[in-house]
């Protein structure tokens, strides 16, 4: 009978970091892929229209000659446009705002004769407040205006390849 005592080596507790690093890298790859540098000209306070079965098309990637014109609604009453935001410039929608806006658009046209205006207006904004802005764009010599809408992601049958063009009448 031997009195041998089994002395095992002390248990070494250590955390296995491999799954943690795996998950972390997965998250980073996910965020790197989904993150796109957002256009700082886009105003978050605007709730764009979302037409059902939309015939709208994807925005063009070439944004050199694009200027974004936001019609910022009053937060207390979304049916009133508070100011126009063109790029980083803001113009009061009340008095003289349209004249200043026209001046800036003319200036933009001088720099880029093919300037395209991306018009972003809230879904609740009355047409009578959008129409003068379109007229201002026409009087500034803007030829192309993109009416921005929310993408209809639910409509799978949509044909995104057909680009539709409409004319806008300035004075009826």
């Amino acid at each position: 009978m031997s009195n041998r005592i089994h002395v095992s080596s002390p248990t070494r507790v250590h955390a296995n970091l491999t799954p943690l690093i795996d998950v972390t890298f997965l998250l980073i790859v996910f965020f790197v892929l989904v993150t796109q540098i957002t256009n700082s000209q886009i105003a978050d306070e605007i709730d764009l229209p979302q037409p059902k079965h939309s015939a709208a098309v994807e925005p063009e990637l070439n944004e050199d000659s694009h200027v974004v014109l936001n019609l910022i609604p009053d937060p207390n009453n979304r049916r009133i446009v508070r100011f126009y935001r063109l790029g980083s410039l803001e113009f009061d929608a009340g008095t003289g705002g349209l004249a200043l806006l026209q001046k800036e658009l003319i200036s933009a046209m001088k720099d880029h004769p093919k300037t395209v205006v991306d018009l972003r207006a809230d879904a609740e904004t009355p047409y009578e407040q959008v129409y003068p802005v379109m007229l201002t764009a026409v009087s500034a010599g803007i030829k192309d205006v993109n009416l921005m809408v929310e993408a209809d992601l639910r409509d799978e049958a949509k044909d995104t390849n057909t680009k539709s063009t409409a004319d806008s009448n300035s004075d009826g």
Partner: protein
Amino acid sequence: MREAKKRGAATKSVMNLNLVAMIDVVFLLLMYFLLATNFSIGEEMFSITMPAPLGHAPNPDPFDLPDQPVVIRVESLGPDRAQYQIHVDIAVTQPTSFDELSRLLRQWRVSPENSEGILFPETPILIQPGTSCRWDHAISTLNACLRQQYTKVQFMEPETGSENAP
């Protein structure tokens, strides 16, 4: 001898990778992306061509016969998105929704499959929203026309004196 062997084993250098710095950087990157990412809603656009300003319009073709336009009036009846009224001047039964308007426009459009149509894709369509018409109702009317491949859709000045202001 055995002691010497033991001493030699103790001084043997152990190769291991220090992951601490890498994990620090990785977590920093993760925090940056978590805070900086903004899941914005995708946007699309209706590309419209504006007419030339007054005085700059090209001379119209004197032999061009003017087409009789179709006028679609749309008005919002309340603050709700579902409350609106559509009136098409050539319709016997007025559409009650934008889908119905789109269906009517498809029925009326002349195409190889529909020889009994009454409108050509080039027929001008004038959209006349009321003064208090919501922008999304004006856009939905435009969308209904463009879905059926009408090419000359125009926005008119707001219809004044609309009685159903929300």
